[in-house]
């Protein structure tokens, strides 16, 4: 049940997310951007107040609530000055943990009590306590958009496996304690059917993190290249043999909606900062906001932001009610990404020289939003998907 459905609880959640951001994030964000990563401690603090586990069953160590609460939290955090980079790094488990939870449920259904307990005690709970960082490794150096063609392979060795190959652009991959990696298991079939998710331990022999990647934006979110040379994987770390692609596809909708929220929330933040700026800043003896072209630009920024928000909210509500909305989620992402790119650009423009400076917040958003149209389904790939689903 969505906490956000009750106005008082929603206000409390928004308050919490804003306070947490103001106390625990914004004072340190510049340092973390320079460090290239978030401190682990932040995960623990976020877990302590229940932010890490929103939308996850309390029986599994989550905080309860549902996806609407995740949306409200993300909006509030970005609105209070967190960044897309913070969201991606602090909530990396949001794209990785669902696969572990899916396997947990499969094991419970199959009466594999030990197997289920293992996942719960060794991964799910520690991740939600903020003690363990979990990444999702799908993309490979020679391809990310087409998941069905990935080449990292698992070989069977008796009951166990060894994994060889490479992953790249892996969020939180530098800090990760476990990586849910998509690997090819030829025995389960070809293409999509031949993909399995396995949990890899960076401490294993053959596992290397050759590079922390330097990026245009999302600086506080570490991104890694990973190399696997016969990394051993125990059967209990195999998250459903041959079920990898289906599991990934299952969570595409929530992943795309989450990115849409990051996008329009960032747009809203840029708009708020720019409105304040336009009221204060004078050129040619008058405040910027007194110029019609500036006011109209602000309206354009607002229009795009609000349309993206209202559409995403509507799709989110229907998604929570159990509808399958693959095309709509793709469109929400596209719409919000377009809004964010336009608004961040206009924000920098209206800030003038200051907008180009590291010290202004809009400069960071301008760089941070650029990835949103690439990761989690590139814009063209989304468009093509919708074309197919609509029969065009």
């Amino acid at each position, binding site marked *: 049940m969505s*906490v956000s459905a*009750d106005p*008082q*609880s929603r*206000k*409390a*959640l928004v*308050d*919490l997310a804003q*306070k*947490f951001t103001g106390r625990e994030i914004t004072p340190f964000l510049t340092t973390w951007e320079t460090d290239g990563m978030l401190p682990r401690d932040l995960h623990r603090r976020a877990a*302590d*107040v*229940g*932010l890490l*586990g*929103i939308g996850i069953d*309390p029986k599994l160590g989550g*905080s*309860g*609530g549902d996806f609407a*609460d995740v949306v409200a939290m993300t909006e509030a955090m970005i609105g209070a000055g967190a960044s897309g980079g913070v969201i991606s790094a602090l909530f990396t488990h949001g794209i990785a943990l669902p696969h572990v939870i899916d396997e947990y449920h499969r094991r419970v259904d199959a009466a594999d009590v030990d197997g289920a307990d293992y996942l719960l005690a060794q991964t799910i709970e520690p991740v939600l306590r903020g003690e363990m960082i979990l990444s999702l490794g799908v993309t490979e150096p020679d391809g990310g958009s087409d998941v069905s063609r990935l080449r990292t392979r698992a070989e069977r060795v008796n009951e166990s496996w060894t994994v060889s190959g490479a992953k790249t652009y892996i969020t939180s991959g530098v800090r990760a304690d476990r990586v849910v990696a998509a690997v090819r298991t030829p025995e389960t079939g070809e293409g999509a059917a031949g993909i399995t998710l396995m949990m890899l331990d960076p401490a294993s022999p053959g596992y290397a993190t050759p590079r922390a990647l330097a990026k245009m934006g999302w600086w506080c979110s570490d991104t890694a290249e990973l190399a696997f040379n016969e990394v051993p994987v125990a059967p209990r770390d195999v998250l459903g043999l041959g079920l990898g692609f289906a599991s990934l596809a299952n969570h595409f909708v929530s992943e795309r909606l989450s990115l849409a929220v990051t996008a329009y929330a960032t747009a809203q933040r840029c708009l708020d900062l720019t409105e304040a700026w336009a009221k204060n800043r004078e050129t040619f003896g008058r405040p910027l906001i007194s110029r019609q072209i500036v006011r109209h630009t602000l309206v354009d920024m607002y229009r795009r932001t609000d349309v993206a928000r209202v559409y995403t909210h509507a799709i989110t509500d229907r998604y929570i009610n159990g509808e399958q909305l693959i095309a709509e989620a793709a469109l929400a992402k596209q719409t919000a990404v377009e809004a964010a790119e336009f608004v961040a650009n206009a924000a920098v423009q209206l800030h003038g020289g200051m907008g180009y400076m590291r010290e202004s917040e809009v400069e960071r958003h301008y760089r941070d939003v650029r990835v949103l149209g690439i990761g989690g389904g590139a814009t063209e790939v989304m468009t093509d998907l919708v074309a197919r689903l609509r029969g065009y």
Partner: protein
Amino acid sequence: MKIAVCVKQVPDTWAEKKLRDDDSTLDREAADGVMNELDEYAVEEALRLAEANGGEVVVVTMGPERAAETVRKALSMGADAGVHLVDDSLHGSDALATSYALAEVLAARNFDLVIFGSESTDARMSVVPAMVAERLGLPQVTFAQKVDVDGSKVAIQRQTEYGYDDVEAELPAVVSVVEKINEPRYPSFKGIMAAKKKPVETLTVADAGLDAAKLGATAAWTKVASFAARPPKAAGTVVTDEGDGGAKIATYLTEQKFV
């Protein structure tokens, strides 16, 4: 140990406050209501004491329907239950009436410790904790910057201008706390979820067995006869220095009786 925390909903500290034209009381509708900031410290202290010594924390408020939000906030921080005294006839109550109503509600519930914030940001009288203690016939250990409970005793450091005094009392007792005492937690998400299910007892004046004649604007010991907005800042006097600036300033200061 059974601890009561008295909290008050006040207009948002940053909002512009207005008086109502009809009865010269604070216009509580004009601004968002929030928990009085010092009361957050009181709730935090109550929760810490209950966590350290075992026990139950009951949050008590008197206020309009909207004040239920403030009760809910304290519950989401971790308090166990709430009591909300709400009645149209309470409107306009002064500190004497408020202390009477709170004391009656508290007396009926046998608390070991009652904790207050040391003042509210709207009225800023700082007298309700002391008045309640007096009415309950309990020791008052107020303006605490540190509180320890040991068996049947409560020991506090009372903040003073020169440092602090150590003050002790037997339980039950009334404590008020100052900002220095702790850092209030924010409600966790679990707390927010749990708060909806926690019991809140809503009482009318009649339910609480209060004498309506002692409450509300008509019973108030003081009345606001009239009020006016603070005049805007005057432009001030500009002294132009034509070689005699110093003398002119001295004349001005003498005229204003500063020197």
